């Protein structure tokens, strides 16, 4: 009986060991993903691209953090990834990026920023860190430009009376402040003689003023008028009341939102003549809003925009990091897709949401996987981010 037990135990151990061999041989590369939003449509679209397309196309496993909104949460999540033997981390969370880079570098795992960039000072500090892969996403200049273009779009159509929803401006969130400043600067540039916001015309001064007050003042900007402003995400009755009041302001023609336009203002502008513009993403819900005429202008991140940073990260893990001639990490600006009608939106969304043949497909990404990909080639690839340019790359 004793011998039988020994034989059985040995057989079990052998079976387990044999079962492990193929698993070890094909062990996928684990990549941790830090997320600041785990449930939003944009976040889910990013996740779907990685999990339903990239993870199938490449031998990788993505491990996601919980929703992060604090620096200690980010640090805890990176610790958890390190415990799980992740080889790299792709970060969508930006509370304290310098700390994230330091932590990953100390642990010897690669770190990349998705859909964002470091400030110039931060890049100078970390560009030569061995484990810092780099960042691909909209820079603050691009955020400024996206707000500017949105306002200019309506001003060029002859509209003169606007409202602005400032989102996280009261919380001094950089990208929202830059987008709002871009809107104001477009009004200054196109508002005719003497147009100024609170007496200033310089973009830097406008940005500084918004940082200082955490708000935007209404009033005339030359021949144009900012009739109403609401900021914050209070989600209480008073806040909704202010939004309703803004949408119902007599004479207002367009409401420009730095984000979340449909969610916070869609119901108030629905059925009215007020145009609603937002910076958001290419999701099904946004498509419905576009079809029903609630939203008129969408500058959106596209879900597959995170394909190139994945390739750069995978290359680094495989020992082929893409660095410039001085050995510095990536710092590449990537903008938004802009749709101004339902048909255009549907065309963009169909490609972006495809799990069979998305915008950045494996065929395109594989071009940049082999060893020896130069920084300049990769930068040129990222610069071609518009829908038409990516479609041309596919051909």
């Amino acid at each position: 009986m004793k011998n039988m037990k020994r034989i059985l135990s040995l057989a079990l151990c052998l079976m387990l060991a044999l079962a492990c061999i193929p698993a070890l041989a094909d062990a996928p590369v684990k990549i941790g993903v830090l997320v600041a939003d785990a449930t939003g449509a944009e976040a889910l679209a990013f996740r779907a691209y990685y999990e339903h397309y990239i993870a199938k196309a490449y031998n990788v496993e993505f491990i996601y953090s919980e929703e992060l909104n604090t620096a200690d949460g980010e640090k805890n999540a990176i610790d958890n990834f390190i415990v799980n033997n992740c080889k790299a981390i792709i970060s969508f969370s930006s509370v304290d990026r310098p700390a994230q880079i330091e932590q990953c570098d100390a642990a010897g795992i690669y770190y990349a920023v998705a859909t964002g960039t470091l400030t110039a000072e931060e890049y100078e500090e970390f560009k030569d860190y061995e484990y810092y892969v780099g960042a691909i996403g909209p820079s603050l200049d691009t955020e400024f430009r996206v707000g500017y273009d949105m306002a200019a779009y309506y001003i060029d159509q002859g509209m003169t009376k606007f409202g602005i929803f400032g989102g996280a401006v009261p919380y001094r969130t950089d990208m929202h402040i830059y987008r709002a400043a871009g809107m104001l600067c477009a009004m200054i540039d196109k508002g005719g003689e003497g147009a100024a916001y609170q007496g200033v015309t310089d973009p830097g001064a406008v940005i500084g003023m918004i940082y200082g007050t955490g708000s935007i003042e209404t009033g005339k900007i030359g021949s144009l008028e900012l009739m109403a402003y609401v900021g914050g995400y209070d989600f209480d009755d008073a806040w909704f009341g202010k939004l309703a009041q803004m949408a119902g302001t007599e004479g207002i023609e367009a409401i420009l939102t730095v984000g979340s336009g449909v969610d916070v203002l869609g119901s108030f502008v629905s059925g009215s003549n007020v145009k609603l513009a937002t910076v958001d993403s290419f999701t099904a819900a946004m498509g419905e809003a576009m079809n029903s005429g609630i939203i008129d202008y969408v500058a959106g991140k596209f879900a597959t925009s995170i394909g190139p940073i994945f390739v750069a990260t995978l290359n680094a893990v495989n020992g082929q990091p893409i660095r410039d001639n001085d050995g510095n990490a990536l710092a590449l600006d990537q903008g938004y897709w802009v749709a101004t009608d339902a048909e255009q939106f549907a065309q963009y969304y169909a490609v972006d949401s495809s799990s069979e043949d998305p915008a950045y497909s494996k065929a395109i990404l594989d071009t940049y996987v082999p060893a020896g990909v130069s920084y300049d080639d990769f930068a040129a690839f990222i610069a071609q981010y518009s829908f038409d340019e990516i479609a041309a790359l596919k051909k």
Partner: protein
Amino acid sequence: MGKQTWKERIPAFASVLGLLVLIAAYYIVGAVRDANVAYGLKAIVNQSVVVALVATGAVFIYTLGSFDISLGAATGVSALLGAMAYNATGSLVIMFLVCVGVAVVLGFINSSLASVFNLPIFVTTVAMMSVLSAFMLILIGWNGAGDTVKVKARDVRPLDNIPFKVFILVSYIALCWFIFTLLPTGREAKFIGGSPVCARLSGINEKKLGIIASLISAVGIGLGAFLTIIYAPTLTKDTASSIGMDVIIAIVFGGMPVSGGPRSRILSAVVGAFSMGFMTQIMSMLNLGSGYGQMIKAAIFLLVVFIALGSQRGKLLTR
């Protein structure tokens, strides 16, 4: 009073047994998943120490049968002011003193308001939570550096190590244990929590004890705020926002009834906080996704509390 059988003893040690089972599970899952178990232990200490500190102090308030919902906001405000004090002076000692000092002042305001208006501490802490959350936004605005208040990481890095954190935690637990177990304060607090009317008729000053409990708890909040800055020196409006709920879970997970009273124990908070830390790491290693992980954590939580409170079911309320 016969000798207790092992079945009767299990509930009293359920939370400790739960922690031991979780530690064993952590090593087993770590081995199976080929995880970096040693690094994970360090992560668990880092992730649990602030909750353990705040929860240990909060045991005094819970023992009274009361409840403080503003713990997270108080920790956040203390940390923000501590960080701003450091940026103004460059002194870690001043940062430490401001963290603890602000927390003590807030604790005193909470308990004094409750005393003056003859309200339960819980009621004043509800109001205080709203005030402090708004105050955090104001502080960040005053700071004028975007949506964060930052201390240079390299300035606090020398203190961001496990021995220092464990030293702070053990010292505070020892102080609380001494007050709770060896001084009349602890016994009186248990008496009030167990039977407020009898305690009052016995001449115990409930208001005075409420203030003492708030002040002891405030020291834990201040220490937690200090270690929060040390660990992650970029503070936002959401800093420490989850601590209030984590403390409640830790205390209940540690086997202490939220109704307070004679079964209150100082070590419940530490056992609960570290149990949560191990559970989080296990879920992370299993990579179940946050949805499934949360459900499994909730199920384990219910199981441990069910066993821990087993001896009380079917009996009269302790209060």
